């Protein structure tokens, strides 16, 4: 039943030239897709291959026997549990802070009139352009003077209100009809109430986008956590993985262990991305084009 329906739908459109063009197009896209996915597949397969298969001379592509040995070794060499906890806690805190702080300023910039609004917005745009590397040295001095090296505060606070988030929230808040807020004001609602109970529920999709982006950014953040932590216990996952990866005495040259580590870092993020992919592409398109 479906086959003929499909045929009648596409048949009139597909001239001969168009059909080959379409085939060519799909061929190129599939090739691209394979290139994009291959490193991940290679990582996943290698993580479960035995040491013998990893170095086999006619290449063993699919493991003969799937093994968890690399994961077992990894857990012995690296305290994956606490790194996972550190990364998760920091990412959650950073995300919550950004959702609240960025929305507040985004709302003010979009919907409130106050003296100094233009300079504040200009500040946000400047902050968007400043690379994090520029602040590295004094931040380290400041944080160590305050005795905050190896603390969660040092990992969270510098990222608690990102300029990107303010910009994104401002874009979405601008779309809220003024009449709605005016009506609430006439009814005597305070600005905080209006923000929290009227504006925020209206920008839920934007909040979802911001949450996903901030979480990922924090989860993948590297240079500052590398500088701000000394105690290996306090390393986030990327720092733990990187310091592990560049120290051949620890890995013993075993690529299997490294792939197991990378697999654990990448897998949760990829799963979240595939589940929520709609929000990603929407989010960056909106932020980029408005």
């Amino acid at each position, binding site marked *: 039943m479906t086959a003929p329906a499909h045929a009648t739908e596409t048949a009139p459109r597909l001239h001969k030239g168009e059909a080959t063009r379409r085939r060519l197009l799909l061929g190129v896209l599939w090739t691209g897709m394979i290139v994009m996915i291959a490193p991940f597949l290679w990582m996943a397969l290698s993580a479960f291959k035995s040491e013998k298969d*990893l170095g086999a001379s006619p290449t063993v592509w699919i493991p003969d026997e799937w093994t968890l040995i690399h994961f077992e070794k990894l857990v012995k060499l690296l305290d994956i549990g606490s790194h996972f906890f550190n990364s998760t806690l920091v990412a959650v805190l950073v995300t919550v802070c950004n959702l609240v702080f960025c929305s507040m300023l985004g709302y003010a910039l979009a919907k409130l009139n106050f003296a100094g609004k233009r300079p504040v917005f200009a500040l946000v745009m400047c902050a968007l352009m400043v690379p994090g590397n520029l602040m590295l*040295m004094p931040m380290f*001095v400041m944080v160590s003077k305050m005795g905050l090296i190896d603390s969660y505060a040092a990992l969270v606070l510098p990222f608690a209100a990102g300029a990107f988030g303010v910009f994104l929230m401002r874009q979405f808040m601008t779309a809220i009809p003024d009449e709605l807020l005016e009506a609430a004001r006439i009814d005597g609602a305070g600005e905080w109430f209006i923000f929290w109970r009227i504006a925020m529920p209206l920008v839920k999709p934007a909040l979802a986008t911001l949450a996903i982006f901030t979480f990922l950014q924090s989860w993948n953040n590297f240079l500052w956590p590398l500088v701000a932590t000394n105690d290996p216990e306090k390393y986030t996952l990327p720092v733990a993985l990187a310091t592990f990866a560049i120290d051949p005495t620890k890995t013993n040259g075993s690529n299997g262990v490294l792939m197991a580590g990378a697999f654990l870092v990448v897998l949760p993020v990829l799963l979240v991305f595939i589940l929520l992919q709609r929000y990603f592409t929407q989010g960056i398109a909106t932020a980029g084009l408005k």
Partner: protein
Amino acid sequence: MATTTPSRRGVPDRTSKVRSGAGAGSSPGRKRGPKLRRDRLSVQNGPGWLFSTPFLVLFLTFMAVPIVATFVMSFTDFGLRNVADPFSTEFIGLENYTKLVDDERFLTSLFNTSYFVIVGVPLTVGAGLFAAVLLNRGVGRLRTFFRVGFYAPVVTSIVAVAVVWRFVLDPADGLISNLASEVGLSSPDFLGSKALAMPSLIVMAAWRNLGTAMVLFLAGLQGIPAEVREAARLDGAGVWQEFRRITVPLLRPTMLYVSVMTTIGFLNVFEEPFVMTEGGPDNATLTVSLDMYHEGFRFFHMGYASAMAYVLFTVILAVTLLQLRLLKDKTK
């Protein structure tokens, strides 16, 4: 008596309050209505600043002050002992900057970073544009599938991806050397070769970042009205002409944004060489950020590293302004 007085007192109090409240709300309130509305809608200084406070405090502490501090530090000999006692550092004028001009390592890192940006940015933006144009040509349901696949590397940790790529490029057991041996070829030692190490990092960076460009271009392409394309086609424009004369000019704003953001990101390249090559072989992949990290946090030459940070920042500013100018003028 003692128990009833307050209640008695309370009752008229409450009613009078309600009455006066209602009175204030009705008669003067109605008179004041439009004025009050205009006042509250036109200026909200209190809430405005209150809502800005968290961002401003964090911005001031973790951005404004450090930006100024880096600038000041770049004129000092700030070293390890000053981490505990920052204010005992000594000013040495422009010495850090004059030293940078003769620093072979730093000049190499500047060259490498430029190489990475000049080859990497066009490659990434071009690949992203190519993917977006292909996906926009009606592949139906598969579009989401391809989009997810092409964007997937963007969301993953650079560190993890760099660890994976190091193994992909491994000359003995890597993916590429295995593929090469399947067809009877041998693969070079990509990361161990002075000539190939940087191109390898560039290809990896393009692979990781083209998804961002693609998504932005896709959004831009969807903003081009179908009638414009239709008209071009009716006038006999081929695929290439349509791309040259319609797509590229109308995508300029997106192109500007994508190029600027990609360039800023690429100028700061750090994780890839840190994990994959540690700047080697023979400093062939030493970038400015990596050199700065080494100076600042391995040798604790923080004053010197600050000067490096400012040179990099100046380059970023200059390149951004140049791009804004080059790409914007042509839209007019």
